[in-house]
């Protein structure tokens, strides 16, 4: 039987054509996502392993925050890139991690206590610290050893009453072949504080 002999042929072909057009339109939508920049960077372009989540960053200036288990609830200070807490601190996960502190706009000193992970990899873990795009300095963290690092935090690095601290972790290591970079390991955060610049601790 020829298709033209089938009285349903034209409606069926018409419906198929409509579906084909609809599916083609969805392919166009697929190729043109309309998403926020942080969504694109993490999920699509994969240019970051740290997808910042909304946090209040509630913090009292001058307080030392203990990030080990048993310490205070630090969820509101950790936008992304952390796992824990554990007994030896908050473990950085991926190639960067973020901290956020609601602070007054003035010159401050950032103090971090960091421990390097004891995994096969580089002799030391470099930690590049920046805030709102302004480079604050670099820490070299030794595996298995906890060290204290201080960084000057100028007032211009504080935006909208918040110090958004970015820790870039270029030496982070994977624990198994082919593992995703979102699971990379590098350092553990033991303590952090922000103090007015005049009362900065030892470097």
């Amino acid at each position: 039987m020829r298709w033209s002999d089938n009285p349903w042929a034209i409606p069926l072909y018409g419906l198929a054509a409509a579906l084909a057009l609809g599916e083609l339109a969805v392919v166009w939508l697929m190729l043109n996502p309309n998403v926020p920049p942080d969504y694109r960077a993490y999920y699509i372009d994969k240019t970051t392993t740290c997808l910042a989540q909304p946090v209040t960053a509630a913090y009292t200036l001058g307080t030392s925050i203990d990030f080990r288990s048993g310490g205070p609830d630090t969820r509101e200070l950790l936008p992304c890139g952390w796992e824990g807490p554990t007994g030896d601190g908050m473990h950085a996960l991926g190639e960067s991690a973020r901290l956020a502190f609601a602070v007054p706009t003035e010159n401050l000193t950032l103090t971090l206590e960091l421990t390097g992970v004891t995994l096969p990899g580089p002799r030391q873990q470099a930690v590049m610290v920046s805030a709102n795009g302004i480079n604050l300095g670099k820490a070299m963290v030794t595996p298995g050893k906890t060290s204290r690092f201080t960084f000057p935090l100028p007032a211009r690095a504080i935006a909208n009453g918040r110090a958004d601290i970015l820790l870039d972790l270029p030496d982070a290591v994977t624990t198994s072949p082919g593992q995703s970079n979102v699971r990379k390991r590098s350092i553990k955060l033991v303590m952090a504080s922000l103090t007015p610049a005049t009362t900065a601790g030892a470097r």
Partner: protein
Amino acid sequence: MAIFEKSSAENLLAATATPVPVEGAIALPAAGPFDISGSRTLAYILLLPLFFLLTGLLLRFLAFRTAMPDADLTQYFDELCRWDCSWYVKMAETGYDRFPVPGRINAGNWAFFPSFPMLVGGVHALLPFPTIVTASLVSLVTTYAAVLAAWPLLGRDRFAYALYAAFMLSGPVSFYFTSFFTEPLYVLMTTLVFAQLARSRYLSAGVAAAILSATRIVGVFASLAIGLQALLDYRRNAGTWRGAIPALLGNPQLVLALFIAPLGLFAYMAFLYFWMGDALAFSHVQRAWARTIANPLTYLWQGFGNRPDAGWAPSSSQILAMAAASGLVLTGVLAWRRQWPAALFCLLAILIPLAAGLASMLRFMTALTPLTITLMTLLARRRWLFWLSLAAILLGAYTTTLAWFGGNVALV
């Protein structure tokens, strides 16, 4: 002998009692494999799965009492609901996440396909039970229906049918099919696709495939199975490949079926775009689970090489690798029996998830209907093997459910 044991031509002969009319060079059987003669056969088909449904409930409940002797009886359904099940419960109650995810995590629930949670959510709106109880009831009914629908694919072999019913409803991993995972609907729709293809009913196969593609991403490969079956049907009827494409395009039902089959996936993609701006969110969000695409054989090799720290029992990775390898072997059996559409569907439904790692491979393999049906037909060939398999299946329901309660990650 089962449908998946025969060539396409034999399938049609088994499925049809009257001559095959030909329309547009495509064979359309006049009588179907669901034609059942005799009330005793009908009673067997309907009551046997019901019996195994009850034994399954009993065996899983015994495992629950053994694992948690002090737990309240009403906790049974809650305790069976583990891993992805919790995601589905939340989805049935609150739908899809927006971005950023309200729970402030990277893992949005866009990874999970909508059809089964939607079905449960709809039924939940009508019944006064908690979501997980409703979901378990819907799963039981859906799996029962899937077993009934598999009767023609099992070649009306009572022994193979008994094993299949026992495996699905009272088997070692029956908790996948009776709590809240997408597997019940996935199995039912896969069964309907291939039952319809066995009769060269492309349009109804396409409708089942559309639901399948909204149930799990790999369901979309049923579209390819439909196209391949149409090609093979043409070759069988015409005796040549020449003129195949014009003849197939001249069949409006087939053309429509091919565009209907992936409709579930396309509809979900359109929804995701309008919901959050990314039609591929279900794929992109896999990054949050640290999934990386690699050679499936590499993952298999790594899985087999991941030995247990101590003892003789295989590691979780080895169990998952064995599940995937068994799936590939059974796919080879399908190909050897010239069941090309089913073999193609199974091959893609194994390799695509395997390219992202071994996670959940045991669950994926046990829900690949052509494979489980093929396995049951093999086990039903000898009477002693049948009884041994039945005993292992029923015993496995108890022991594996205990392992499920124990958090064995090979079962995730």
